[in-house]
């Protein structure tokens, strides 16, 4: 179902959402720096950056999350699990790539053997309002990774910016709950034609040419390739690309303790960190940047595909934009093709 929301109705619409839900949306922390955050007022939202630095996964899988609290009394401990989500959530303003990425993490966290209840509860409690990318950046390559700037996949509602108004497409059951929303009105056929035109124009803009088809097979042959000796050279091993990646989902579990009371917390971790795979004995199966860079790329383009039938990259371009040394994953994908074909 396709409806329309006038932009001058956006604030009241968001206000009404805030009354009924915990609303998460991009918020600017400093000029050019934003994250997804729970908002108290519609004015906090800032959609200037196509994608905030930190991806929307944070709403479902916070960088730092308390798993349980404990308190010791004598020889016994009281434990309280922290998995409940108290209030239903709406995520407003996420881009198609980020939303795709959530379904990548679904594969792991909602896996058949064990279910990560922390992620699951947040996932279930959330309604996602995606926004189409009318002006994708030159670093965007979602069209190469199975998405596109107007991909509706994973959105419950999908907004298309027409300038003065949004087209609001209600896509799922959760989305259809907004059918009677008082701020939505019927979209005219002109509106829909305009939306169509914007979509066609935008979809041509992202790079669809990256050689990702067959990358798994190429990488199968490349585990011990000298390719890795060179590719990691300029990487300084900071975790920016992994921490800002919408699909990366590695974490570490730590106890924070103060005199018998405390909490078990999980924090995002990065395969580019030396300590990530270092064993207590000091042995490290991935001792240098070569193995760690290989792990990052193999996981995204080979292992993940083997396990779940899809790659773990959605082409958002964050790792390209924020890398301090301009390590460009697009270039690496192309070089994998070259190395694999030679």
């Amino acid at each position, binding site marked *: 179902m396709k409806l329309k929301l006038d932009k001058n109705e956006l604030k009241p619409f968001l206000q009404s959402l805030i009354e009924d839900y915990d609303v998460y949306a991009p918020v600017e922390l400093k000029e050019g720096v934003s994250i997804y955050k729970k908002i108290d007022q519609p004015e906090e939202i800032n959609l200037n950056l196509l994608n905030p630095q930190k991806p929307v996964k944070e709403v479902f899988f916070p960088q730092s999350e308390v798993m349980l609290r404990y308190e010791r009394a004598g020889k016994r401990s009281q*434990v309280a699990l922290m998995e409940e989500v108290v209030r239903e959530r709406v995520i407003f303003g996420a881009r198609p790539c980020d939303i795709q990425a959530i379904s990548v993490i679904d594969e*792991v*966290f909602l896996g058949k*053997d064990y279910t*990560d209840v922390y992620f699951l509860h947040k996932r279930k409690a959330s309604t996602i309002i995606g926004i189409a990318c009318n002006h994708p950046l030159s670093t965007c390559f979602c069209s190469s990774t199975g998405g596109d700037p107007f991909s509706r996949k994973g959105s419950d509602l999908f907004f298309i910016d027409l300038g003065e108004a949004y087209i609001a497409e209600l896509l799922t059951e959760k989305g259809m709950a907004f059918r009677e929303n008082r701020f939505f009105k019927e979209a005219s056929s002109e509106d829909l034609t305009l939306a169509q035109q914007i979509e066609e124009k935008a979809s041509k803009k992202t790079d669809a040419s990256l050689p990702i088809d067959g990358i798994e097979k190429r990488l199968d042959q490349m*585990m011990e390739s000298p390719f890795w000796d060179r590719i990691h050279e300029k990487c300084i091993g900071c975790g920016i690309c992994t921490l800002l990646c919408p699909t990366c989902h590695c974490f570490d579990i730590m106890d924070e303790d103060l005199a018998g009371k405390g909490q078990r917390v999980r924090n995002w971790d990065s395969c580019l960190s030396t300590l*990530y795979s270092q064993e207590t004995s000091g042995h490290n199966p991935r001792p240098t940047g070569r193995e760690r860079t290989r792990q990052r790329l193999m996981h995204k383009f080979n*292992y993940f595909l083997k396990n779940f039938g899809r790659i773990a990259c959605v082409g958002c371009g964050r790792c390209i934009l924020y890398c301090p040394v301009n390590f460009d994953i697009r270039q690496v994908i192309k070089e994998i093709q070259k190395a694999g074909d030679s």
Partner: protein
Amino acid sequence: MKNPYLPIPMVVKKACIETTDRMLRTVELAFLSEEDGQSFRFIPGQFCELSIFGKGEAPFGIASSPTEKGSLKFTINKAGVVTTALHHIEEGAEIGIRGPLGNGYPIDLFEGKNVLVIGGGFAFTTLRSLIVYLSHPKNRSKVGDITVIYGARLPGLLLYKEELLEWEKRNDLKLILTVDQGDEVWKGKVGLVPNVLEEAAPSSENTYAVICGPPIMVKFTFPKLMALRFPNERIFTSLERRMKCGIGKCGRCNVGHLYVCKDGPVFSYAQLEKLPKDY
């Protein structure tokens, strides 16, 4: 829905130091709730995350056998924060466990076959579980010969010494003990496990081999098994990697596309050959 990160409460029933260097301690844990105890079913080779609130969690292979009901045993090498805490924990104290995790040894395959168990150092824990399980009166008839080769650096570093003495007396189990360096009272073999294996030359016919030990020992044992004509599919080993979640979510313990915690820790040599040498 069950939260897979919630530890099951247990209590330390007994604890003892195993080795003369005092670096290895075995703790025996009992379930606090009977229900937990009954629903906890495992096979040898599986592991648990032991959890001490305030210190954290670490994975350990289960050293006791499923046939030893009512409690679980773990042998802990003192190395980091959690293991140190496990060395200091007193009898009667509460401890959490998550598990059983991982796949365990393929005991179904062993039915009707001979089993060769090769262990080194403190990695002998899950092998103890396996040996106790297979040699239990209920199971003994299900497998053929059981041969155990177990080595340590020094006699004092061998685990489960009293049990080893008992096993030596058994006639339905062949036990070969070896140390890298003997002492005045040591009467067993002196030599490295791969060499002792070569010398003992057990037949590979109808036999499965299970190896667990330090990486260097495992590395040199594989070729000896090859020479004895063990096919790759009939050699199993248990891998060790840094783990956190134990359920295939947190990353880090993968070898290629497989996760040691979820798809392992037990792998056949045939499987390992296909995986990247990333361990």
